């Protein structure tokens, strides 16, 4: 009997919290509607994915390799990102470039999102600022593991 009473009490408390949020937000929205500015604003639900919020510039999203002016990747395949990566998720294969000013380019640059922890160490380690995590692409899902191995060598 006492147990049933406790369950009922928790149910009422839960409903009260929901009701409080409703009325508080309602109050702020109503005040705003009448042009009264308050410090706090009513909560707004964003209809993701139809509506998308702007990401912070510091946000770590999918990696990209910046291109050179001529379209080649600016990465020089120095493997410092591979060295620093704590989750061992980068696979880089270097190739020779005929241009003696470039010399070294990535033939393959694959990031394995199965393993990536989005720490951004690769961005910090890069000596030529080639890799960045600013694509804003956050919808990184795939039905297969292989689908999460993203090639970045074609900028």
């Amino acid at each position, binding site marked *: 009997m006492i147990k049933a009473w406790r369950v009922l009490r928790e149910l009422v408390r839960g409903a009260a919290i929901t009701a409080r949020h409703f009325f508080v937000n309602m109050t702020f929205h109503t005040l705003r509607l009448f042009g009264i500015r308050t410090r706090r604003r009513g909560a707004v639900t964003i209809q993701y994915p139809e509506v998308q919020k702007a990401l912070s510039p510091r946000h770590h999203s999918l990696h990209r390799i910046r291109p050179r002016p001529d379209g080649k990747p600016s990465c*020089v*395949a*120095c*493997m*410092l990102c*591979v*060295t620093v990566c704590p989750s*061992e998720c*980068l*696979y*880089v294969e*270097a*190739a*020779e470039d005929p241009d*003696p*000013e470039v*010399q*070294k380019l990535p033939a393959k640059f694959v990031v394995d999102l199965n393993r990536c922890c989005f720490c951004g160490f690769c961005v910090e380690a890069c*000596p*030529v600022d080639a890799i960045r995590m600013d694509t804003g692409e956050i919808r990184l899902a795939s039905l297969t593991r292989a689908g999460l191995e993203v090639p970045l060598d074609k900028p």
Partner: protein
Amino acid sequence: MNGKKPVGLTIDGLKVQAAEGTNVLRAAEQAGVSIPHFCFHAGLDVEGSCRMCLVEIEGLPKLELACSTIIREGMVVRTSTDRVGEARKDVLEFLLAEHPLDCPICDKAGECRLQDYYDLYGLYASRMIEPRERRDKKVPIGRGLILDRERCVLCTRCVRFLRLVTGTGELGMFERSLRSEVGIYDGRPVDNNYSGNLVDICPVGAITAEDFRFKTRAWFLVRRPSVCPHCSRGCAVIIESVEGYPLRRSEKRVYRVTARENPAVNGFWICDVGRDGRHDIDDGRHAAVSEKGAPVQGLSWEKALAGVAAAIRSVPGPERAGKIAVVLNARLTCEELALAKGLFVTGLGLGKVFFADRKPGPADSLLLTSDRVPNAKGVLDAGFTPRLPALGELAGAEVLLVFGSYILEHFGEEDVARALAGVPSKYLFAAHTGPLDRLVDAVFPVAHPAEKSGTYINTEGVRQSFARAVRPCPAVVAEGAILVCLANSLGISLGDADVR
């Protein structure tokens, strides 16, 4: 000290004894004091051009070069005073003044003396405001070597190596002062069997090898000592490999074979034949037991070896001497040869124990010998008299065990096929795939010498023991383990032989 008179001196407060005629740099090295240097190399003569090894010697007003100063009794050397530190820093600043600092694309990065010394003795901010000098970045100088003149510090190690060690002198110093550069003479590229050493001795990334260029970075490499199996010199080598990350998981690759110092065998150098031996470790290897020329997944060598033991047992005892034939090779280690002796000669009493090896090749006057096997002396040492089998002798056998597919180097493939057609059970124990695979009943994948431990006796009788330098594929097994397993299943005691 080779009979030379010992000389006592003081280096950084340490009382040091070194042989007469040693220079200060070597004496300090022997005492555990490292003095930075670019141009000095223990295997070459003294040049004194890099000025990096300046030290303070009591009684002399100026700093002296440690590489070109011979030690004297009672000499007091200081290598870590402020004056020396300042001098090192300034020398380094001059050397780096025109350096391109393209470490991200330089193969030497991670093992470069410029990097190391800058970290230890430099750490200054660059004062250069002028643009750096541009020079040729990619000059092929022959034998797959690429010269980068921007990175070169003009230590002339390469020039001296080719003059003193190989005597070919393909490289030279051209122009003077600021314009001086290393280069080849017109139409005479570097072409000798020791060209790979130029990459090893270059203290910076000026000479790089096409074979290693851009393949990986130096800090990923795991370096383990081994002995080169490509000729009877048995040079001491370092096998540099990567296992797993940054390669794919379960992937492994040998990237380089470099020289290891061993004054009794090869000094500081190895030849290009041994250096190219890296392909021998990775390429064309068996990765599983194969039957009838096709690999069988999931069949362990122990299980497959039970078939070999059964075939040997099916031959009655007295007939074994003539009906079972074994072909061994001189790539087996001394320990494995002792096991083979105990199993095949003493245990089974076989009369047909043969040896088939790689054909001799051209020798050179420095290290490479014509015998292209590492353990020819070890074969004699184990009590064998190596003899190449005639094909008729193999054809008459009922059970044939072949270690290594070198028999095809001596006989035509069709002749061998014809001879083996009449043998009811025949087994091959080979590291590399080859045409012999489909002529036998089963092929056992065995370890490359770099993947096993053992002892080789070289052409001069020097014994060199080595440990495993590369981890083999899971299915690959050393011949020693096969011989022990075979002896166990046949109930033959191999005594207290060192089976390791």
